[in-house]
C-alpha cells in the first residue's frame, strides 16, 4: 500500500474518503476491503445489493478485517435493483461497482452524473449499446475531473506490467501473433428449473443465476476470458483490430440460460498480425490459462509457470522479472485513492472500453458466425438490457444464439 505522508494524514483526520459499495458479493466485498486498506482515512458508509443477507454477511466480514472503517448504519443499507441510486445519492466520494456486468453502464452513468469517483469491475458492459453509454460516461468523468479506475487487474500486476513494457520496447521484435487460452470448468452453472422458488420473477431468477444469461453476464468470454482479451489489446497497444472471425457453441446442455460454453476467436490486426483467443468452460477438460506471444525476434510465454518467459527463438532468456510480485487487486485501489488524496485525476476509461468492446466483438462473431469488422461492432445496434426493465415482470429467456441463423444487428 502507498502510505500517505504524515502531513496529509494529519490534515485528513476530519476529511475521510467515504466509500459506497454497489454489489456486496464475493468480489464486491473483496474490493471494499481493498478500498479500506488503500487510504488511512477511507471508510465504508453505504451498501447496495438485492439481498439483505448478502449485505449483512459482507459487512460482518469487512468489520472483522477493516474494523472501525466500516461505518454503515442500518439506514444506509439499500436493497433492490435501484438501490445503487440511493448509495450514490448518499454522502459518498467513491463508488465501487461490483454487480453483474449487465447492470454496469446505467450505474456508471448515474455515478458520473452525480460527480462521484468510480472503481468499476471488468467488464464494463455486455453489449454495444452499453459500451456507447460507457464511452459517454468516461468522457463526462473526464470533463468533471473525476477518477475512473478499472478491475482489469493484470494492468496493475508488476510482473505483467514490466513484461508488456519489454514487448513494447521491442525485445521480441514486431509481434506477429498472440495465442491466448482460457480453458476452465463451468463458473456458476444453471441450477435445475425445479429449484426456482415460487413467486420469484424472471428478472430475479435470471439475476440470481446471472452468469448464465447474456444480458447479465455477457457470456464467459466477455465476463472471464476478457482478462486474456485485455492482454491482447494491451500487447497491440490498445489499437483496435480490423476484423475477427469466431466459432463457438454449447457442448454441455443445461436447463435455462443462453450463454455458450466455448468460443474461439481469430482477430486480424492492421499490420497482418493475428490474435487467437480460445475460451471454454467445460468440466473435466484440460485446463490452461496462458499467453503465447510470437515476435520476429523472440517469444513471450505467460502462464506456464509463475513468471513470464521472454526468450529468443533458440530459447535463450532475454529478460526476466526480478523482485517480488505485488498484489494487483490492492494496487488498483492504491492508485485510485492516492489520486483522490492528491487531487489528481486518473481515468482509465478509454482502454477499459476498448478491451470490453474487443471481447463483445469476438462474442458476436461467434454468436452470428459472421466476419465482423471493428466498425461493425462499434455501430452495432444490439442492446441486451431488458427494455422496459421491470424487476417483477416477465422476461422470457432469449434463445441461445445459433451461428448462421442468429443475425448480426
Amino acid at each position: 500500500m502507498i502510505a500517505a505522508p504524515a502531513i496529509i494524514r494529519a490534515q485528513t483526520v476530519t476529511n475521510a474518503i467515504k466509500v459506497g459499495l454497489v454489489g456486496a458479493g464475493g468480489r464486491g466485498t473483496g474490493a471494499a476491503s481493498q478500498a479500506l486498506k488503500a487510504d488511512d482515512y477511507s471508510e465504508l458508509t453505504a451498501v447496495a445489493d438485492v439481498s439483505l443477507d448478502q449485505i449483512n454477511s459482507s459487512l460482518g466480514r469487512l468489520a472483522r478485517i477493516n474494523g472501525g472503517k466500516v461505518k454503515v448504519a442500518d439506514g444506509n443499507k439499500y436493497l433492490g435493483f435501484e438501490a445503487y441510486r440511493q448509495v450514490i445519492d448518499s454522502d459518498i466520494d467513491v463508488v465501487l461497482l461490483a454487480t453483474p456486468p449487465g447492470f454496469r453502464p446505467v450505474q456508471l452513468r448515474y455515478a458520473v452524473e452525480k460527480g462521484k469517483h468510480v472503481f468499476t469491475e471488468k467488464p464494463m458492459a455486455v453489449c454495444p449499446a452499453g459500451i456507447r453509454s460507457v464511452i459517454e460516461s468516461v468522457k463526462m468523468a473526464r470533463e468533471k475531473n473525476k477518477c475512473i479506475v478499472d478491475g482489469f487487474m493484470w494492468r496493475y500486476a508488476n510482473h505483467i506490467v514490466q513484461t508488456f513494457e519489454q514487448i513494447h520496447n521491442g525485445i521480441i521484435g514486431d509481434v506477429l501473433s498472440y495465442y491466448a487460452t482460457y480453458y476452465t470448468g463451468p463458473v456458476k452453472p444453471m441450477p435445475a428449473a425445479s429449484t426456482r422458488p415460487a413467486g420469484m420473477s424472471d428478472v430475479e431468477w435470471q439475476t440470481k443465476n446471472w452468469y448464465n444469461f447474456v444480458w447479465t453476464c455477457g457470456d464467459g468470454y466477455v465476463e472471464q476470458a476478457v482478462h486474456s482479451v485485455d492482454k491482447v489489446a494491451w500487447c497491440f497497444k490498445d489499437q483496435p483490430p480490423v476484423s475477427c472471425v469466431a466459432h463457438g457453441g454449447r457442448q454441455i446442455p443445461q436447463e435455462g440460460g443462453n450463454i455458450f460454453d466455448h468460443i474461439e476467436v481469430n482477430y486480424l490486426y492492421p499490420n497482418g498480425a493475428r490474435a487467437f483467443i480460445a475460451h471454454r468452460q467445460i468440466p473435466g477438460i484440460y485446463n490452461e490459462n496462458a499467453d503465447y506471444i510470437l515476435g520476429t525476434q523472440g517469444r513471450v510465454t505467460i502462464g506456464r509457470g509463475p513468471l513470464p518467459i521472454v526468450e529468443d527463438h533458440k530459447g535463450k532468456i532475454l529478460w526476466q522479472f526480478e523482485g517480488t510480485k505485488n498484489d494487483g487487486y490492492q494496487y488498483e485501489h492504491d492508485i485510485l485513492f492516492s489520486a483522490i488524496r492528491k487531487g489528481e485525476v486518473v481515468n482509465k476509461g478509454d482502454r477499459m472500453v476498448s478491451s470490453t468492446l474487443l471481447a463483445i466483438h469476438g462474442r458476436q462473431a461467434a454468436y452470428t458466425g459472421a466476419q465482423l469488422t471493428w466498425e461493425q461492432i462499434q455501430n452495432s445496434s444490439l442492446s441486451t438490457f431488458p427494455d422496459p426493465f421491470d424487476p417483477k415482470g416477465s422476461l422470457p429467456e432469449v434463445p441461445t444464439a445459433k451461428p448462421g441463423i442468429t443475425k448480426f444487428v
Partner: protein
Amino acid sequence: MILLLALFAVDFQTEVKPILDKQCNACHDRAFYLRKKDKIVGSLAIMPPGGPGLNARDKATIGKWVAEGLEYPEVKKGLEDDLSLTRNLHGQIVKASAKDAFRNYKQRIPGSDVNYEMVAVPGGTFKMGNNAVADEGPEHEREVEPFWMAAREVTWNEYRLFMFAQISGEEAGANIAVDAVSRPTKPYVEMSFGMGIEGYPAISMTHHAANKYAQWLSAKTGHFYRLPTEAEWEYACKANAGPPEKLDEVAIYGKQQYELVGKKAANGFGLYDMLGNVMEWTTDQYQKEAYRNPQAWYPSKTPYPHTARGGSWQDKAGRVTCTARFASDPSWKQQDPNLPKSIWYHTDALGLGFRLVRPVKTPAPEEMHRFWNNGVAEDQ
C-alpha cells in the same frame, strides 16, 4: 387375498432392515439398492468386503424382498460431514485395517487407475531440530510411533480425483461416506499454473483441503490417512542419517518450476522428494518456540500459521533441509480477490504440496476427527 399377501410379504422393518443395517448401510443407500437390484443378491454374498457374508436364510429374505419390488419405506438420510461421519469411517477403518501387515504396499485409488505407494517407516527416536536456527531449536530427542508414509508427494493425478468427483469414477449413493466428505469448490483459475499435471505434484491447496483429501482417501480405502506431524515428517526426512552430501542428487530446488515427483534419489527409508520439489503440509499449528516444550502434535487453534516442511523448487539450498520450518501466511491467498477467500486454495503458494501418513495405531474417533477437521478453515 389381501390378508394372504400380508402374511407372505417380507416385512422391511423387522426382517430386511436388520440385514441391511448389519451388512450394507455403512456404505450404501437406497438409491444404490434400487440401481443394483438385479445384482443385489449375488453381491450381498460377498458384502461387506472382508466380512462374513450372508447366511442362507438372510439371503432368501433379501431375495424375496427384491422379488417383491424392493419396498423401502424409510428414506435414509445422507450423512453430513461431521463427527458422525468420522465415527462411521472409524468403524470401517478398524475393521478393514486390522489384519494389514506392516510392510510397504501399493494402493490403487478405488474407481480409478491411479496408484500410490506407501512405505513402512519403523518407529524410533531421533534428534529433532537444529540449534543454529532460531525456530528450529533447541535440538531435542523425540520418539515417534511406526507409520506408513507416501513414497512420493501427492500428484495431480491423485488430487484431481478429489477435486472433480466427475473424473473419480464415483457413483452417487455407492458409498455414502465418500459422498459426505466436503470437496473443493471449482477453481476459477488453472491451479497448476501451467507447470504440468501428469505425474507432477499437486500444489496450492489449503491445510483444510489437504485434511479433507486425507479423509476422502480414507473413506475410499478404509485406511486412516492424515497429514504427518512435524516430528513424524522430520524423522522420515532424516531417515536416521545426516544431511545429504549432495543436495542436487535428492532435491529439486532453486528452479523455475516444480518437477515430476520421484525424479531424484530416495532417502534411506525409500521416500522421494522429502527435500525440495514442493514443501509439504504437516498437521501442526506453527509455533516458533514449539521445541521448548515439545508435544506429540499441535492441533490447530488459528487459521495461520500452520507448518510446512522440506522447502520447494522456489527455495535456495539453505532452506531445503529436514529441519527448516515454513509458517503459512495470509499472503498465500493474495491473488484471491474475493471475500470470503476460498477455504480450498492458496493461489499464491505455488511451492506448497503435501504427502500423507497412515499411523499403525488407529486413534479414537474424536482424535481422528481433529486430524480431518482443523476447525479453522476460514480466514476471517
